[in-house]
C-alpha cells in the first residue's frame, strides 16, 4: 500500500493546473497499486491551507501545509529541504510537476534523499518492487520506458500528460514547519517580470503563431498578434519575405537564415512553406497551417490544415482559443 507525496505547485497564491495533474497521477497510481494515501504538500504564504479543499477534490488524503511569507515566491532551497525532509517519512514516491520550478525542485530533492529521479514522465505504473515510467525522449521522437529501482522514487510529471480528474476525498490537514528558512535563500529572487513586459522568446515559447506573405499587408499582422495573445504563452514569428519587407523585425524571422524553432504548437498563417522557412520550424511538435492555396507546400508538413481566407479563419480561431483556455 504505497503512499505518495505530491508537491502541489502554486503561483501567486493560486494552485497551478500542474498541481492538480500531479495529484490525479498520484491518486491513479496508489489506486492501481491496491490502495495507499496521497499526501499533497503546499508551500505558500499565509492562507495556503485554503487549497486543501481543492486538493481533496482531486484525491488528496492528506494536505500538508507549510505556511511562511518567504514562500510567496519560489524559495528553492527551503522548499527542497522541506519536501525532502517530509519524504523521509514512509513514502514510496514523491511526485513533482515537471514545470520550470518543478524540475529544479525534483532534482534537488532527489539529490538530498539520494533517491533515483525520472523526469518528464507521461505514465507511471508499479512493477513489482520497482516503478516503471514512460518518458518521451530525443525531442519526443522516442518513447523511453524506464525502470526505477529502490524503496523511494522521485518522479517529475510532464505538464498536460495527465488530465485532472475529480476523485473527492475529505483530506486531513497537517501543518508542516519549513525545514530551512525561506528567508535565507542563497539564490535571491529580485523580481518576477510578468509576461507582457518580457516578450516571449521564439526559442522558448511553447506556441508560435507565424505570419507570411498571405497576410498581404503589415497591418494585417494584428490578426497574428491577437491569436498569439489568445494562447497566452505564444510568441509571434514571421517569414523572411515579411521581415525583408519590413513588416516585422528581423529578429522575428523563422527559417534557414533566421531562428530555428521547435515549439509544441506552430500555427502558420498565410505561409506557403518554402524550403527555407520549413528548415526553421518543421520539428515543431504540432503544426497547423492556414492558407488560401490547397497546393501550398506547408500543407505537406502540417498536421492540421485549413484551406481558406485567413482573414475569416484567424479571428474565428482566436475567439475559439480564448474560450477553450478559460480556467487554465
Amino acid at each position: 500500500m504505497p503512499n505518495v507525496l505530491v508537491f502541489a505547485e502554486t503561483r501567486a497564491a493560486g494552485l497551478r493546473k500542474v498541481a492538480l495533474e500531479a495529484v490525479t497521477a498520484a491518486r491513479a497510481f496508489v489506486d492501481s497499486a491496491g490502495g495507499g494515501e496521497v499526501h499533497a504538500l503546499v508551500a505558500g504564504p499565509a492562507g495556503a491551507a485554503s487549497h486543501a479543499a481543492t486538493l481533496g477534490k482531486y484525491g488528496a488524503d492528506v494536505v500538508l501545509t507549510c505556511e511562511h511569507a518567504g514562500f510567496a515566491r519560489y524559495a528553492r532551497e527551503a522548499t527542497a529541504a522541506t519536501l525532502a525532509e517530509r519524504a523521509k517519512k514512509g513514502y514510496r514516491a514523491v511526485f513533482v510537476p515537471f514545470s520550470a520550478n518543478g524540475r529544479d525542485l525534483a532534482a534537488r530533492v532527489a539529490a538530498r534523499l539520494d533517491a533515483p529521479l525520472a523526469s518528464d514522465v507521461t505514465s507511471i505504473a508499479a512493477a513489482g518492487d520497482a516503478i516503471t515510467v514512460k518518458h518521451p525522449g530525443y525531442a519526443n521522437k522516442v518513447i523511453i520506458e524506464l525502470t526505477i529501482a529502490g524503496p523511494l522514487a522521485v518522479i517529475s510529471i510532464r505538464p498536460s500528460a495527465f488530465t485532472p480528474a475529480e476523485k473527492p476525498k475529505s483530506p486531513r490537514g497537517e501543518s508542516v514547519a519549513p525545514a530551512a528558512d525561506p528567508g535565507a535563500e542563497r539564490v535571491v529572487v529580485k523580481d518576477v517580470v510578468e509576461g507582457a513586459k518580457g516578450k516571449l522568446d521564439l526559442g522558448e515559447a511553447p506556441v508560435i503563431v507565424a505570419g507570411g506573405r498571405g497576410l498581404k499587408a503589415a497591418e494585417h499582422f494584428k490578426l497574428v498578434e491577437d491569436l498569439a495573445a489568445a494562447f497566452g504563452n505564444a510568441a509571434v514569428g514571421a517569414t523572411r519575405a515579411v521581415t525583408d519587407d519590413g513588416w516585422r523585425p528581423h529578429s522575428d524571422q523563422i527559417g534557414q537564415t533566421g531562428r530555428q524553432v521547435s515549439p509544441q504548437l506552430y500555427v502558420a498563417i498565410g505561409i506557403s512553406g518554402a524550403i527555407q522557412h520549413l528548415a526553421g520550424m518543421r520539428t515543431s511538435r504540432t503544426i497547423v497551417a492556414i492558407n488560401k492555396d490547397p497546393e501550398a507546400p506547408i500543407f505537406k508538413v502540417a498536421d492540421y490544415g485549413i484551406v481558406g481566407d485567413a482573414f475569416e479563419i484567424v479571428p474565428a480561431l482566436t475567439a475559439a482559443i480564448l474560450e477553450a483556455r478559460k480556467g487554465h
Partner: protein
Amino acid sequence: MKIAVCIKRTPDSESRFKVAAGGSGIDEAGLKFDIDDFASYAVEAALQINEKQGPGETIVIAVGPDAIQETLRKAMSMGVDRAVHLKAEAAPFDGIAIAKALAAELKSGGFDLILFGKHAFDTGAGIVGTATAELLGLPCITAASKLEIAGGKGTARREIEGAGEMVEFSLPAVVTVDEGIARPRYPSLKGIMAAKKKPMEIKPAQLGPLRVTVKAMELPAERPPGRIIGQGAAAVPQLVKLLQNEAKVL
C-alpha cells in the same frame, strides 16, 4: 575565473531514430554525434565570461565511453583549455548517478562557476546540473536564459512559464543554461588544430549503482500525414477539438 563546464555527447537532433535490436536503446548506425546543444551554450557562455573577465581557465568534463573524447576535443577547439574524461561504458539514464560522478570530480576543483546545459537532447531530463549543485552544496540557478557575472556575484533570468524570474547570487555557484544565453562559436581551423594538443585527463567515473535503467524504447505512433481538416472558419471548432484531444497542446 576558474570555470568548469559539464557536457554531454548526444546525437544530432535532426536525425530520424530507430530502435536498436533488443529494444532498449536507439540504433546508432548512421547517427552523427556532437556536443549537446544546451551544453554547447554553456561552453560558449563560459568562454565569453572568461574573455570578458580577463584571464582564467575553462575546463570541460564529460561522463561516457571513449567516443566522448572527440566531443571534449570539439569543446577545446572552441577555446576550452583542458578536458576531463570520466570513463563509463555509457552515459546512463540515471541522472542522479551522473551527478554523483561529477560531484566527486568537481569537489576539490576550486571552481568559481560550474555550468551545465539545462537538459540534454536524449534524456530531456534536466536532472544532472541541479542535482550536482545540491551534492556540492552550492547555490544553483536552473535554466538561466540570461547570465551576468561580475565581482564574485551573479545575476540571472529564468523563464518560468510566461514570466521571467530575476535572481541574484554569489559565487561559487552552479548554473544550468537555457537557449538564448549565448550562441556557440564556430571553431576555426586554427582552434581545431590547437585542440589536438590540449591536455585531457582520463579517469574512471564513480557512478555507483544505477537505479534508473532503460527497460524498453519504442517509436511513437507514426505522425499521420498532414491532413486538411476543412475549409474556412467552419473548420475552426474541429481544429480546436483536435488540438485539445489529439495533439494535446491546449
